[in-house]
């Protein structure tokens, strides 16, 4: 058996056995890690593969979260049906929102693209904050829970694991496909790729929509675990989270951002449990990271094993 295969097998067994070893609290944290792994990887398909630095990715995570909350609380469906529809609905709504945001944003590149995504995110944040009748405004939407057995943390963990692994597999196929090759070429040299016959904007827009949809799925998975959604999920500060996770894990590998998400979430729990200065600790970590490990944790691991 090859080394990657062994690693994958090991990771698979650990992931399956994990809830047996953890308290309910840590199972919640494990679910958060899963959701944020998907979120960070979806963000990095945009950044690391597509060269598009979005300051608004949190908008889609948030939209996915609200889509889940609305479906569960306000759609008037039976709990089971609402839950069954949840992944599709969260992805579809996030994709539609991402299509609108992306349609305008991919017309510009670099910092202007970033600013457009930022602007749309603030717009959506304001909607979440002010459309009180729909979103509960500042209070958010609370009391969300999955139906029946799924309300038990360890059962929901397996649900989240299945959804996230399936989604990561789809994204992995995407970056390994001709579409993904073209996306990397586009990041590398957008002008050249036009002259081999690629419609750059269409390709960027499709990437934006797909990654937005998966961020939405991550938001939905997380919403039903945490039990609530708040406007803050869409605030611009929330968009820093996937950026930090991706850089922390390493933007040059597919799963690097997932590792970054795991480390980020666990560190946040450990540090914020002991001190209120979690942002300070995070700042120091980012400094060390960028100065000493420009390729993130996966870059460090690769150097050690090389």
């Amino acid at each position: 058996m090859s080394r990657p295969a062994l690693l994958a097998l090991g990771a698979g067994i650990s992931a399956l056995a994990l809830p047996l070893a953890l308290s309910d609290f840590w199972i919640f944290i494990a679910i958060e890690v899963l959701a944020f792994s998907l979120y960070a990887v979806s963000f990095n398909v945009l950044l690391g593969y597509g060269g598009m630095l979005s300051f608004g990715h949190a908008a889609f995570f948030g939209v996915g979260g609200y889509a889940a909350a609305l479906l569960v609380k306000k759609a008037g469906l039976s709990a089971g049906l609402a839950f069954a529809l949840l992944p599709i609905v969260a992805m579809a709504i996030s994709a539609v929102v991402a299509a609108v945001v992306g349609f305008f944003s991919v017309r510009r590149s670099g910092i202007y693209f970033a600013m457009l995504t930022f602007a749309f995110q603030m717009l959506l944040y304001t909607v979440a904050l002010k459309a009180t009748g729909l979103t509960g405004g500042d209070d958010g939407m609370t009391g969300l829970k999955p139906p029946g057995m799924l309300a038990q943390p360890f059962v929901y963990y397996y649900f989240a694991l299945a959804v996230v692994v399936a989604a990561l597999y789809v994204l992995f196929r995407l970056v390994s496909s001709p579409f993904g090759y073209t996306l990397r070429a586009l990041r590398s040299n957008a002008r050249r790729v036009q002259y081999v016959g690629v419609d750059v904007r269409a390709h960027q827009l499709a990437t934006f929509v797909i990654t937005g949809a998966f961020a939405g799925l991550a938001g939905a998975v997380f919403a039903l675990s945490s039990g609530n959604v708040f406007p803050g999920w869409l605030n611009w500060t929330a968009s820093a989270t996937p950026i930090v996770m991706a850089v922390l894990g390493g933007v040059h590998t597919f799963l690097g951002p997932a590792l970054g998400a795991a480390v980020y979430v666990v560190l946040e729990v450990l540090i914020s449990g002991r001190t209120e200065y979690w942002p300070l600790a995070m700042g120091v970590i980012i400094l060390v990271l960028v100065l000493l490990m420009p390729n993130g944790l996966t870059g460090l691991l690769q150097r050690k094993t090389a």
Partner: protein
Amino acid sequence: MSAEPILRVESLAKRFGGLQALGGVDLSVERGEFRAIIGPNGAGKSTFFNTMTGLLRPDSGRVSFEGREITGEPPHILARKGVGRTFQITSVFHDLSALENVQVSLLAHARRAWSLWQRARTLYAERARELLELVGLGKNPGRLAGTLAHGDQKRLELAIALAGEPRLLLLDEPTAGMAAQERIESITLVHRVASELGLSCVFTEHDMAVVFAVATRITVMHQGRVLAEGTPAEVRARPEVQQVYLGETA
């Protein structure tokens, strides 16, 4: 040979503010030609190229390829129609391997850029290797394009362009930044490959040795207009050409 020229440009004009970069350029290129466009710096050669290939919008005028109008079409549409180009400043995909560089072009040409599920690693890899061999880069297909020597990147860019199976290839200063000996080798390679594949080529060039080595016809540009056109011998004999261009370098 069909009577229709492969490329016809009529009164192409482009102004930047107060500067008339192109003052109505006419050009007609027959199938199988290896046409050089020469002219002093600022003659408008690059603007002409960029206006023909969709990077800039012309203010007026008309460009036709194989009898169909392509004026102002965006680059990806031109590429799909069979017009390839290379750039003055070498333009490859730096952080992709040489092989992947060519694969990307082959995938786009085969309209596979939107395949979302199939694994791309081995798709068209064989054809990509052949193209790398053709331009003399068969040895290290896995090397990152950004780490190749300048001349090799130029070859790679040629392979990328050829992967799109263009019928017309536009090369903007294909020998820019090369040493004198390398220039002749490089343009000879383009010429050989173009002849083998039956491509028509239009290229801009500064080095007269390169131009006279391969061009079948020469167009001389000066101050955004065509000053003269003809076979190398005809162009060489024109006094006004010697005055504005050849005179400067001789």
